[in-house]
């Protein structure tokens, strides 16, 4: 079991190497001169050439890649050209915020999706099914930025029920222990700050997650219907097992497996989709960092964020695969 999971992790290494190569190569194709960008507009050609040599940009691309890869592996992502700070530090501040937002969105998508899937399964072949279909189709067809704007309009402006910018109420200071805001506020015992942070996350997390719920509902409903055709469900009924136990103890355990795999794939999309939502809600995460970096052609940040995105998605996929292996004895390779 563990060996199988480790083998699964090992398969990630070549993918990462390939992505780093593509990332580096693609950014080198852009007509951008990082040396010129890093100097004040008044700098002379000689000064820029000196900077280029100092940055190693005059050396062959393969050597540049090797240097970059070596530094990256050591955790040194270089300095931001625009903000003149180490990229590693910027990532350490913004990545936890994005992870918190994505996780919250995934929890919302998961709760809505699994609950809705069970509900739709209960409604199968009844009149309510068409209504549920329409609602979920509508949920799916709105893009996340439209959801974001709609939620701001309804809950932020019309009802003034929830905040929609930043992460905390004005005047609150954020405690820093692990950089994960929700965790830190609890660690230092500031429940009021924790709740403020939660209130600030509801709208962006909902906007990000809601469109991912309907596919979960549909897959869960479909695989529950398939599972109910299986012999072991009938055999359990013939043993006198009650319908509730059949659903929770037999059918769901099997039907959840394809649903989990789907959620793993979705989380990757969701993590990438956080960019727009972060911008709309002025949420200080990796998305905003990325948008600024692209605007300023800040190559070290773009490279580092791109690579981080890839690592997170691969980690999630591997994690979900591990979870599915844990839940499905047939995959445990015995």
């Amino acid at each position, binding site marked *: 079991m563990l060996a199988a999971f480790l083998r699964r992790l090992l398969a990630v290494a070549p993918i990462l190497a390939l992505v780093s190569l593509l990332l580096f190569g693609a950014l080198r194709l852009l007509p951008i001169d990082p040396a010129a960008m890093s100097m004040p507009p008044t700098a002379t050609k000689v000064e820029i050439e000196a900077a280029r040599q100092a940055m190693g940009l005059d050396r062959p691309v393969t050597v540049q890649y090797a240097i970059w890869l070596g530094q990256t592996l050591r955790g040194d992502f270089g300095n931001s050209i625009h903000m003149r700070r180490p990229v590693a530090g910027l990532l350490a501040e913004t990545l936890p915020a994005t992870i918190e937002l994505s996780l919250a969105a995934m929890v919302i998508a998961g709760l809505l999706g699994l609950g809705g899937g069970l509900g739709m399964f209960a409604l199968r072949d009844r009149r309510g099914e068409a209504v549920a279909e329409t609602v979920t189709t509508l949920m799916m067809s709105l893009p996340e930025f439209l959801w974001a704007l709609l939620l701001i309009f309804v809950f932020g402006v019309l009802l003034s029920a929830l905040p929609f910018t930043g992460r905390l109420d004005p005047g609150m200071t954020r405690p820093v222990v692990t950089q994960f805001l929700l965790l830190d506020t609890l660690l230092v015992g500031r429940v009021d700050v924790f709740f403020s942070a939660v209130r600030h996350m509801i709208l962006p997390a909902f906007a990000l997650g809601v469109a991912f719920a309907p596919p979960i509902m549909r897959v869960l409903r479909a695989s529950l219907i398939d599972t109910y055709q299986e*012999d072991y469900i009938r055999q359990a009924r013939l043993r006198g097992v009650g319908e509730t136990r059949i659903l929770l103890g*037999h059918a769901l*355990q099997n039907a959840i497996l394809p649903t989990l795999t789907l959620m793993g794939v979705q989380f990757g999309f969701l993590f990438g989709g956080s960019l727009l939502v972060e911008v709309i809600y002025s949420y200080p995460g990796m998305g905003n960092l990325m948008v600024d970096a692209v605007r300023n052609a800040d190559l070290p940040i773009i490279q580092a964020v791109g690579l981080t995105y890839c690592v997170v998605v691969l980690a999630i996929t591997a994690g979900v695969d591990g979870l599915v292996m844990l839940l*499905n004895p*047939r995959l445990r390779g015995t």
Partner: protein
Amino acid sequence: MSVLRAENLCVTARIDGVDVAALDGLSLTLAPGKVLGLVGESGAGKSMLGRAIAQLLPPGFAVTAGMLEFAGRDLVAMAPDQRQNLLGRQIGFIPQEPLSALNPVRSIGSQFAEHLRRLGIADWRSAAIAALESVQLPDLLDRFPHQLSGGMCQRVLIAMAFASKPALVVADEPTTALDVTIQARIVALMRDLQVAQNTAVLFITHDLRLAAQVCDEIAVLYAGRVVEHGPADVVLAQPLHPYTKCLLLAAPAISGPRTALYALPDQMPGLRALAEMSGCRFAPRCPLARDACRESVPALAGDTHKIACPHIAEIDTITVPALAPAMVAATGETLVSVAGLGKVFRGRFGRKPTIAVRDVSFSIAAGEFVGVVGESGSGKSTLARLLMGLEQKTSGEIRLAGQDVGGWGAAARRLRLRTAQMVFQDPQSALNPRRRVGAIVTQALEAAGVGLAERRARAAEILADLGMPLELADRAPSQLSGGQRQRVNIGRALCLVPKLLVADEIVSGLDVSVQAQLLALLARLRAEHGFALLLISHDLAVVRYLCERVMVMRNGEVVEAGRTDEVFANPQHDYTRELLASVPGAA
């Protein structure tokens, strides 16, 4: 008091607005400790009784008349929670497909725990181990279903069914999915538990000989009606209803004189056809039928041996001619020669390699029929696939008509396809559902670039060969019956008139009367075209009927080979003897 009593029970399906009885006026009683066999081909309605007992009928089906009692309590009118209370406690069920009847993601122990806790057994673990012991299984509570064989899964399910000491166990084709030696063991185990606990068993099966071996009484069902009901040995030895008699004569025997198979025309009418039928439902196929049979429904009459037919005096006119033992065709010319053939499947992900076939040598003469028997996993299907080039051999030599065809090369492939064709087991998945029958049977010509007119002409010839009307050429496989589909499957292989047919379990899963039709077809086609046949089968009786020579395979090796009549009459290897002794009805 009887454990189970059905009185004029009718289960009705609504089809296109018309009510059709899938079970029509079933009456029977089952006393404590007795085993009643419910025998019939597919579509006879034999599973309906088990489903009616649990009230888990298919959608659209309902009990519309009569009554069904368990220990004096009305099962149909009973509240659902009361019935659920009986299930698993006083009524146990043993399923047809053991491998899929256990939840794949839960361990055997957790499924036992759920069942035994419901029965109110606190120390479920020791009770479960005792139950497993009663079916001669070790403690495998921590294992998962996929780690067990089909026979082990079925023993687990039997242990669960008998764990509550039920008054009634319903076993629906419990051994159909299992090998014949496993079947013998499972049946013996069920019989032991049933005797020890004085359980009444409703044993549902398509196999009349197996039922006769297991049951005290047998009821033969045809199209939803009991046509014959009596003591098991009497029904087997002296069947009095024409259907029972034809069914027995249609199944090849494993011992005794070799006879032709009785060829019942057509097949059992489906529910749709039943809606337009009156009188005796067997009349359209019955050799004794007369006009009166189609007008009134014959009543089930008699004391201990009841028969629903007024013409039992003529039952002895239904006979089949005796056949000489199958003889080796005397052409002598060698068509297939295989020497030292071996196949090893590499182990994936660090698993051990599997030796599927090891050091197999044999030859087949032109026009000769050779059978390969053995249980699942014996390597017989791999052997067929190696011969056809669907798998690449690991070692050894394969020669067709004197030429080496073991390789991947284009020349070897062409020669192989010209000489040998394969018929696959399951026509349902072997026939492309999007193509018409005419196109399917001439696929080989299409691949060779032959024009449409010529292909249509050949399709007509093939359909005539198969005994199928020409208008079926424009049908899709889904519009055919199971027997017709298997005919098309055979017809496709015959398109280029091969010298060798390789047939993998082509009659398993078919009803006995349909199987007899197909075996007769093969025998006739052989007389007309003179091809040789390598028949892979788990059914020894079919091989005995059809083949001159037989090879017995076990664990990838041929353990015994020889003339069929000699091997079956005087088996030399222990395994062959065990295999022959396991067949129901073996003398």
